[in-house]
């Protein structure tokens, strides 16, 4: 009840889009990890994490995304990010995550030349 997250997977060509809406935390993060592992299992090498600009993201949630970025680096998958509010764009960049998972201003921009 205290935390809720909706995660859904879409495909566009060879890119898997993971829609993430709600509370992105250590507690709910496994839903994102599971979606990521699912698309990896399907042989996808390009993943776009689509956040909702109204989401609550805390440091535990950021750790989950770092874990995905780390796996992406190790397995040569490209991870991109979109949909973050200006505040969380800043936070992701402060943390240094944007060096490993680039942020795009829109889904369309992220999909171009993926």
């Amino acid at each position: 009840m205290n935390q809720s997250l909706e995660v859904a997977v879409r495909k566009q060509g060879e890119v898997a889009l993971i829609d993430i809406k709600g509370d992105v935390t250590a507690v709910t993060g496994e839903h994102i990890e599971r979606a990521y592992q699912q698309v990896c299992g399907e042989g996808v090498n390009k993943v776009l994490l689509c956040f909702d600009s109204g989401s609550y993201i805390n440091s535990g949630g950021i750790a989950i995304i770092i874990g995905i970025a780390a796996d992406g680096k190790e397995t040569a998958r490209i991870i991109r990010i979109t949909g973050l509010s200006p505040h969380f764009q800043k936070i992701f960049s402060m943390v240094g995550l944007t060096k490993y998972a680039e942020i795009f201003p829109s889904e369309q921009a992220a999909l171009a030349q993926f």
Partner: protein
Amino acid sequence: MPGEKKMELHVPSVLGFEKVAMDFAASVAKMMHFPEERIENLKTAVAEACINAIEHGNKLDATTSVGVTLTIEPSKLSVDIQDQGSGIAEPPVPDIEQKIAGKDKTRGWGMFLIQSLMDEVKFESTPEGGGVVRMVIHLERD
């Protein structure tokens, strides 16, 4: 102090309740006419300090609570987050390279965010020995 207004909130040590503390701080900052961007900074810092108080200070013991004290002063807002633990040791600065390389756990960003987003941060102990994070955010950026 004249013009000073103090508010106190207690929430249970259960993850998720940091959002109530976060919304409380945001409500007061909005009343003080903080700019939107700085309210977002405050929200993240308050949430992170509460998560730490819940997890590290109170060790997820739901019978304990986290105290959030807001003090409105003429040009700033002070926020104290208090737990019933045994004090706070300052952690090392997190290094994303190490974490991405798998040489360090992916967590460990809370204190970094608090220190980066607030204008003043101090870690202290209550007379009872619990941890307190004292944070200040100024209405006008320096």
